């Protein structure tokens, strides 16, 4: 009885986050009728301002469907059920990722996106489940099962933000201003070199070994059938102190193989690694860009991808 109450009660709470629901994406597509769509996670969210990008591109309509903490499983489902299923005249979809995440199909192991995924999935999804099953360890499958029992976790980000908002009540500045101030204070350029070291990452799998068990071939296939261009944007990791690129030879090989594969498949590929315009000071952490550089990065991004917007030369610098 005791265990039933303890383990059962938290499973009762089932919230949904309206800001990141499939309906909100469909609504955004319907309202904007975009020609260009951006997909990705917080790396996209901290890099590109959709309105400013639209302005730079002579008013061409752009929509960003970024969802923090998502990976390629969600982007595949967004592409299939939101972007390609809409009536909008979509020409090109840009998909943002870092390192080799485009061929790592995990769907966010902490369950925060489980509701979103459940909302996006509809009908028979044999391909989706095949890729997920191929790429998950038993441990990850157990975590996913637990996440299914306790959807309360989907509000984790909001709950943590709530603590910060509560702390800000007594202070004159707004929670957003205080968060920006904290972000500035703890940015990389204020940190000691020893504490600014990057966390260890999983070893890179060769592209050839990972592509078949990823969503990448499925994305290319459905886009080709719909006649929509795909452009994959690989964002750059924070450069080293001396400005050099932080990338292993294995990762370099991966990127090269990915570019060749996408070229053969008729998709675009922009790798920002080594881009000299990206300064170390722009970074909040290893990959995220500080809020104050959102416009700068949007311009930088626009300059790089202008050809995909069918604009000659498009430099705004």
């Amino acid at each position, binding site marked *: 009885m*005791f265990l039933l*109450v303890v383990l059962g009660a938290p499973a009762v709470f089932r919230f949904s986050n309206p800001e990141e629901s499939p309906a909100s994406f469909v609504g955004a597509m319907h309202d904007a009728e975009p020609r260009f769509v951006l997909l990705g996670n917080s790396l996209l969210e901290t890099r590109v301002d959709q309105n400013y990008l639209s302005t730079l591109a002579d008013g061409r309509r752009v929509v960003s469907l970024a969802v923090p903490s998502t990976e390629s499983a969600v982007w595949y489902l967004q592409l299939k059920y939101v972007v390609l299923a809409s009536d909008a005249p979509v020409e090109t979809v840009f998909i943002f990722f870092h390192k080799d995440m485009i061929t790592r199909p995990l769907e966010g192991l902490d369950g925060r996106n489980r509701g979103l995924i459940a909302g996006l999935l509809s009908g028979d999804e044999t391909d989706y489940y095949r890729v997920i099953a191929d790429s998950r360890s038993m441990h990850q499958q157990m975590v996913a099962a637990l996440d299914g029992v306790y959807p309360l976790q989907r509000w984790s980000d909001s709950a943590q933000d709530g603590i910060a908002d*509560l702390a800000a009540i007594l202070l004159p500045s707004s929670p957003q201003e205080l968060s920006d101030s*904290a972000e500035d204070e703890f940015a990389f350029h204020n940190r000691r070199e020893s504490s600014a070291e990057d966390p260890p990452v999983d070893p890179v799998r060769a592209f050839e070994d990972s592509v078949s068990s990823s969503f990448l071939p499925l994305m290319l296939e459905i886009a080709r059938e719909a006649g929509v261009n795909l452009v994959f944007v690989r964002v750059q990791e924070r450069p080293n102190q001396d400005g050099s690129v932080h990338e292993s030879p294995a990762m370099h090989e991966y990127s090269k193989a990915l570019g060749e594969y996408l070229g053969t498949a008729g998709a675009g590929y922009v790798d920002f690694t080594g881009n000299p315009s990206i300064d170390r000071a722009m970074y909040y952490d290893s990959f995220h860009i500080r809020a104050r550089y959102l416009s700068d990065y949007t311009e930088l991004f626009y300059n790089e991808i202008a050809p995909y917007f069918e604009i000659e030369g498009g430099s705004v610098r």
Partner: protein
Amino acid sequence: MTFQTLSFLFLLVCTFSLYWFLGRRMQNLLLLVASYVFYGYVDPWLAVLLSAFSLLMYASALGATPIVGEPAGRRQRMFLALGIAVAVGALGVFKFLGFFVESVGDFAEVLGLGTFSNHLNIILPVGISFYTLQALGYVIDVHCGKTEVCRDLLDFGIFISFFPQLVAGPIERASNLLPQFESRRRFSAEDAREGVTLLLWGFFKKLVIADNVGVIADNVFGLESPGFGLVWVGVLAFGLQIFADFSGYTDIARGTARLFGIKLSLNFNHPHMARSPVDFWRRWHISLSTWFRDYVYIPLGGSRAGRRRTVINIMVTFLLSGLWHGAAWNFLLWGAYHGGLVVVQRQVGSLKGSEWRIPRAVRLLQIPVTFALVSAGWILFRETDLAHTLGMLTASPFAESASDYELALFLGLQVAIYSIPVLVHTAVASSVDGVRGLAVTPWQREGARAVFAAGFFAAILLLRPASGGEFIYFQF
């Protein structure tokens, strides 16, 4: 293997499922196997080391046991010395040799004797600081006749390796733990409920409190030159983090052990309510402070050998306690700082007569003053770079702008919010005696406990950060 992994949950569920169908010896055998799986999960070499250490300490204790009715002879003293050598030697090699060689090399370099390659790269086996002290205390107790020698290798093996407390304590005494392994355990629903509640409270403290305020502490201590306000917010955050982290670990250990019918010692007793440095050490990491009291301070003569000798004994004990935490100068300084606080407290106390009563106003200030003194010490504990320690301690309050203070206040208020559950727990615990007089039915009590436990579980799901840190005391 660590507590916050699914592997641990799997091991716990499997072991628990079998445990209560077995007899006493098979229960111990199952716990021993589970403990070695737990310890050798990442690196089987650790299990080999643990078994070799256990065998040597088992033999030492057998040999160090005096013959009944006779004082300990030369042979017994030799075996005692062997036990001490094995335990201290294991600590010395794995924990301090690298530090010693590095320090000698640095010193030689300062003296201009040349540059040396002085990094030995010795890997510290997890938990060695804890199980060596536990085993050493046992051998000494056996030799002194304070506890019965354990002749059953299986019982002794599980006493040393019991997985809930293997890697970060509590450091148990043989007189508490061994009799529990030597007697038959029967399933009790009360033990199971208490165990689950402790587990959830421990995980709540670790995953919700420690991991969230740890982000603030890590950010502040990671700055090149934090300002005055941020330094002290970082110190507060770290103070809360280390308490929630370590006491959380202890509660998980106690809760897990309770599921197997084993009661481990209390390791924390609301240390933030301490009224003096001495009182703090009666409440913080109790199993370590009592170990050092009984096996270092008292054998050195304690407070019976005159005032000067007492001061030396206190300082030696605290320096060793500091060094036990890690082979680094900052831990030595941290030990010296606390030793100094205790010495000053004793000196001030001795100036007053035994008749002197502490005025009410002073009594009210005792808790915040002790809290501030202990908090200041956390800088020495957390900061490994002495130049940065100095920079933090000398940060000027006048060099800050209003927005700097607002940011510090913003972060400080977040720390305060995360500390509320700890304060509520203290308030509830201190008022339990008053509540006991009320007519509360067992159903009401169990209902309240179930609601609290479910609340902790829900809070863990809701408020744990996406990526949490390892337990701080695992590094010791």
